[in-house]
């Protein structure tokens, strides 16, 4: 199962991944220049699932490479920083783009990171929760620093992917797709070039 982490720079994507995979946290995490991924086995409803988390570079300029990482992803964790309003705006852009490019085939979870900095919060939880609801996504507050909420965020997302796969009767995904590919055969419905291109970048 492939889950991609998207969001503005410095919202904590890499830290989130490090917390989930290694259960570790580095105060001075280096900036991510290129996507990286790591995987971990999860036990979901008596099913062993290998979850590959893909971390991406946050800056807009790297956007042209982003489809590579999200196109055959089963889910996306759209990360924002609860102390920085602009980062939620960026999440909105991502949602738009993902909906345009891969349609509903991707499970979305809105993740508000840095919940340990609750006192500096500038994004009211209600705002992001409502936004998540409006797009049919889950919303969670987490802290990569303390580890709070991260396990559950990934777990619930993976669970939702399995559920939606069942619903679709596994027809939406080409057989043999391991979830580890950087991309894959275009699976977007009616995926004409101009269609996709209208995405925001």
């Amino acid at each position, binding site marked *: 199962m492939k889950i991609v982490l998207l969001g503005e*720079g*410095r919202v904590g994507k890499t830290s989130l991944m490090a917390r989930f995979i290694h259960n570790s946290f580095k105060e*001075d*995490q*280096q*900036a*991510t*220049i*290129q*996507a*990286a*991924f*790591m*995987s971990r086995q999860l036990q979901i409803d008596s099913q062993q699932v290998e979850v*590959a988390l893909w971390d991406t*570079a*946050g*800056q807009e*300029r*790297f*956007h*042209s*490479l*982003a*489809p*590579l990482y999200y*196109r055959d992803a089963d889910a996306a964790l759209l990360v924002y920083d609860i102390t920085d309003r602009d980062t939620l705006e960026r999440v909105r852009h991502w949602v738009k*783009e993902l909906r345009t490019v891969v349609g509903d085939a991707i499970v979305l979870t809105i993740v508000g990171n840095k919940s340990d900095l609750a006192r500096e919060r500038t994004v009211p939880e209600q705002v992001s929760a409502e936004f998540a609801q409006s797009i049919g996504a889950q919303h969670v507050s987490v802290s990569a620093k303390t580890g709070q909420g991260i396990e559950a965020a990934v777990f619930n997302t993976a669970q939702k992917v399995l559920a939606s796969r069942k619903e679709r009767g596994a027809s939406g995904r080409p057989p043999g797709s391991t979830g*580890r*590919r*950087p*991309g*894959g*055969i*275009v699976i977007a419905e009616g995926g004409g*070039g*101009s269609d*996709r*291109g*209208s*995405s*925001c*970048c």
Partner: protein
Amino acid sequence: MDASATVLQIFRNILTIKQEDDQLRVIDLQVGSQVHNRVPGNLRTELWLSCLHRKGVGSGYASQYQAMLHKGISEEAAYDIEKDVGRTFPGLAKFATAEGKEALERVLRAYAAFDTEVNYCQGMNFLAALLLIWLPREADAFGALVLIMKDRGLRELYKTDMIMLQARLWQLGKIMPRHLARHMDQHCAIPVLYASSWLLTAFASDFPIFFSSRVMDIILADRYLEAMMKVVVGILKACEKRLLPMTDMEKMVDFLRGEVPRWPHDKLQELLTEALAAEWTPEQAVVLERTEGAESVVDAVQRVASNTPQGTEMEEEAAEAGGTPTKSRPKLASFSWASKLSAASSNASSAGQPNLLQSLTGSLSGFGASLPSYYDAAKQMTSSSLSPLGDLLGLFDSPKTSPEPAAAPSTHADSTSHGDSPAGSRQPDSHQLSSSHASDEHRVPSPAGMTRGNDREQSTLGRGQLGSGQPSGRHRPNRSDAESMVSWGSFREPEQADAPTQTPNFPGQTPANDFLIRLCFTPSGHRSHSGDRETSPDLISTGEPSQGGDASEDPFHHVALTEPLSQAQMHRDKGKKQRAAVSDWEDSQISGFAADSSGGSRHVPMRRAAGV
């Protein structure tokens, strides 16, 4: 932070500073084709300053630093920079301090002001920080940053949509060992997954400082592409045995990005030396000259996902012989869109419908490479005043008196975008292609039928494209327009034994600088030829000044490790051991060149990096 955490932090800082100090005090310095093992760290500063002040180019940039600081930049860029300065080499003591971070921030802001098109992009923070480590004056670091971005061509990778990065990644897939490429493709471990940050940051984001610094030694002196690609290919070659048994993409990528950078110091240094000593095969050289028809990353993914084999050398062969690149693989989506697009665009411009192009281009954005974007890049490159190739630390621009046009890099290093040196047999119109001046990027080929606009540069590019009726110089593809471009060896070939070597005039010349000039620019002997191939091995004196005036075409060959280095004798002795350890390898390399082995017993043949 509680007390124990504070104490821990202090210990950690001390440890970091200690390691950092070790890394910076004694270094392995790459001066042209030669490696000086275990020399004092300040020589790197001197070398880089020499590169910077060469012909006044870099110092010209440096002098604009204050002005650029006062020029405003966009809020977005300022925000992006501010976000990254704290996340650049966070383990290094230098950037753990407020002063260090502020210096880095200022240099990046100045660059963003200087280059409004590229502005700031993640990755540049590592480049600037690396420069600041060795060039403590901010203005120098800024000058050097502009030099590598603009003159050495790195900025092309950073431009919108990173088209050129994608083209380079495509090239990489074609110049790496073929069976390894096939194996990795089969398991979807394509170059974008491991090499993007290497190319963007000169390895600084993944590899230790000593590694990226040595790569930077070459980038500052020469063009960017040559050194970088060699090192990436070198890494892949060094890892071949480990990679081939792996069948898991995650493991392969993890190995390359996680494990290799942590190899021991000596092993990595050796890897670099070997990588830089390798010479391109004609096939590789052809690929490196070509970006037209390059596969975008998205295309690459589609290809590996559908298990379509990568085009073979035959493709190149056909391309070169047949005039147009032949595609053995089915055209992939964005390529064909792009062709349509280009056709549409040329129609549009003639029919006065400029908006069509814009809308079409817009529709492709976000999906990686499209040919029109290549054109933009190409156009940009031609019009930008990239510094001439002759401007290479002076090593390479001794006045050429040879009538042989193919091997005559320009000496007009200060002129700007248009070359004035003979371009060699491949380009009928040498003036327009400005071949020996051009950076490699200049030669981005563009199919003539697809060009848009009517700039002079475009016709220029059209002429330079691969397959536009080039003579069939198949076996010496890099020996014509830029034999200069592809191989350092050819830059520094004095055609006549008595050709005076130009000693560059360094503004702000210091005694140490002086030493470097001697180190780098001692007049060299004649160059020996064997057909197209350079035949002399590079030699390094092990202490005594070289006696063999005829030893090599390499201006470094006299590198007289005399007084200034004598303080470093101790370190060098350690280095000798290292050199001895690899001499078997070297010997086999050198015998391959049928060298005029005038080095004599006093010389330890140094690994050759003529191709660098």
